[in-house]
């Protein structure tokens, strides 16, 4: 630490230096510069802030929600937005739509998080093994990847959920099953470019085995392209989950999943537009936020594909 100048300005200069003094310093500086270019883009920041709010709402839903999301009040059914007690209106069973949306954000985040953990990890495994092993393993693994890529994603997810049974966990599995192939492709491509580089040879000469090379030297280099792709895919995951919920194949009633809420509201749409409209707006806002964030992250993490 160059603690010679402890002021804020000094910290900034220290973070922006071209000549880092240690590995940690270099990493911090890179993070800070990434953050600066990330922050410079207002659209990205909008997406970022929306998602922060979403996480906040999901975390504190029980304290923030004005009503119990499951409590029915048949006397106050189908109240329009802006009516007393019901800011966004109430649904056909007199449940408060705002509270349901708030609790629904938990389901959305739950699904997205699980898919984002499962699919890229599976793709990373398949892709790096295929790329590093080469030969038959590569041919077989990539052929399997192509088969899954050839499937129409929503149809495949539909069929899987039908086979496994409707429910959130199965929807997560189905979406993951359709989402991993692009990650495998990306990781394989990255692995192929890294595999023959000098530093890998050096590591191998030091006695590192394939497992060590893949996990400690190849994976870290695949991460940034995967992260970009994941952020750009998150909106698609949300839309797919909502679509499954809408078809009645995702979260089951009375769960306040946003897609299922649209499906419930569909029956009343002509006279009571808000029941289906509000959850749709929520889905749109969140997936737009993910897209804005992904766009900005791509510029920061992946300069060669950026739109600069």
């Amino acid at each position, binding site marked *: 630490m160059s603690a010679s100048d402890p002021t804020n300005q000094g910290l900034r200069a220290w973070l922006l230096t071209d000549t880092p003094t240690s590995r940690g310093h270099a990493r911090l500086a890179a993070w800070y510069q990434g953050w600066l270019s990330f922050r410079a883009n207002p659209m990205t920041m909008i997406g970022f802030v929306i998602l922060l709010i979403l996480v906040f709402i999901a975390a504190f839903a029980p304290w923030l929600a004005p009503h119990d999301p499951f409590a029915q009040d048949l006397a106050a059914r189908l109240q329009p937005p802006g009516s007393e007690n019901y800011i966004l209106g109430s649904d056909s069973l007199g449940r408060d739509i705002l509270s349901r949306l708030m609790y629904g954000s938990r389901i959305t985040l739950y699904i997205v998080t699980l898919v984002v953990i499962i699919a890229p990890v599976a793709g990373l495994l398949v892709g790096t093994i295929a790329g590093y092993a080469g030969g038959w393993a590569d041919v077989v693994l990539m052929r399997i990847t192509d088969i899954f890529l050839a499937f129409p994603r929503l149809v495949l997810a539909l069929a899987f959920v039908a086979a496994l049974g409707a429910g959130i966990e199965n929807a997560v599995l189905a979406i993951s099953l359709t989402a991993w192939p692009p990650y495998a492709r990306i990781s394989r491509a990255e692995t192929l470019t890294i595999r023959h580089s000098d530093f890998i040879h050096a590591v191998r000469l030091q006695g590192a085995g394939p497992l060590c090379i893949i996990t400690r030297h190849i994976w870290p280099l695949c991460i940034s392209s995967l992260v970009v792709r994941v952020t750009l895919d998150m909106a698609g995951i949300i839309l797919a989950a909502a679509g499954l919920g809408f078809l009645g194949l995702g979260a089951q009633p009375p769960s306040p999943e946003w897609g299922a809420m649209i499906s419930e509201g569909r029956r009343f749409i002509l006279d009571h537009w808000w029941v289906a409209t509000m959850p749709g707006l929520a889905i749109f806002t969140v*997936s737009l936020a993910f897209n804005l964030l992904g766009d900005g992250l791509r510029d920061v993490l992946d300069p060669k594909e950026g739109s600069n």
Partner: protein
Amino acid sequence: MGKGRRQSPFLPALYKGGKTLATIAVTMLGLLFVTFFIGRVMPVDPVLSIVGERATKEIYDAAFLELGLDKPLIVQFYYYLRDVVQGDFGTSLRTGFPVSGDLIRVFPATMELATLGTLIGVILGVPLGVLAAVKRGTWIDQLARVIALIGYSMPIFWLGLIGLLVLYGILGWVGGPGRLDIYYEDIVPTVTGMILIDSALDGNWDIFQNAISHIILPASLLGYYSLAYISRMTRSFMLEQMSAEYVITARVKGLSEREVIWNHVFSNIKVQLITVIALSYAGLLEGSVLTEIIFAWPGIGSYITTSLLSADMNAVMGGTVVVGLVFVCLNIFSDLLYKFFDPRAQ
């Protein structure tokens, strides 16, 4: 191979062609296997759904044997494969007709919708992408980006519902769900199965107009998605080309900006663009599932979904295989096109 390559220029081409065919075959085989597998793990007893709940043990066993369910899974898969190759997907439990006949009946509806959607996407998306690239960094570029981002982020079934509510329910500007008003149905003789073409062939312009009023909203929605994708891709292809040196040469030669953009830059991205359009078309064929349900459009998407909800596995498997086949073919088609027209890819 080395010898053959020197002797004749045809052998490598043959080899490549054979390799492509083998790739298609393996992919299709995998596709069939996955669908078959899904069909088998479905928690539905295929025997019960044929013989009914009250069948005697003898009838049940006879049907069980007839379906070949006593054989190992791999043998069952072989039988399934043999039937599928002959175009036999079994009988749909829901409609009572052979699945292949059902698919031939519903497929044109989806194709009509997806084709019109792609047309809208291309006609609006390509110029938007070119404009965004040429006016890069200006408000036009930002606007194009926002339009595309909104397209990527919109739940299509919700937009469809709102569109129906506003444009059909409140304003009455477009036709409602379905392909035609009910009293127009089954009048035009079926030639292609696409009502717009059939009614035009028949010279029945009333029905043509009615069909347009019904298809315009779902097709525009799909078109919007396709536009979002196509405009972004067009923009990045254009930018890539515009930084090439021949553009400077063309400008130095004194060509007008319009000539540089359209005659030089744009003609260089045509092939890439066609592959993108083919991919987007394939995407729409699939993406129409939710749209078809909202608009009660009797296409392959709603066929698969309704079959799924009534546990009609033959229909689901058949539908999935057909969509997958079209998907694979379009992918390979765009790939070949690329290799064929773009000397750089060889």
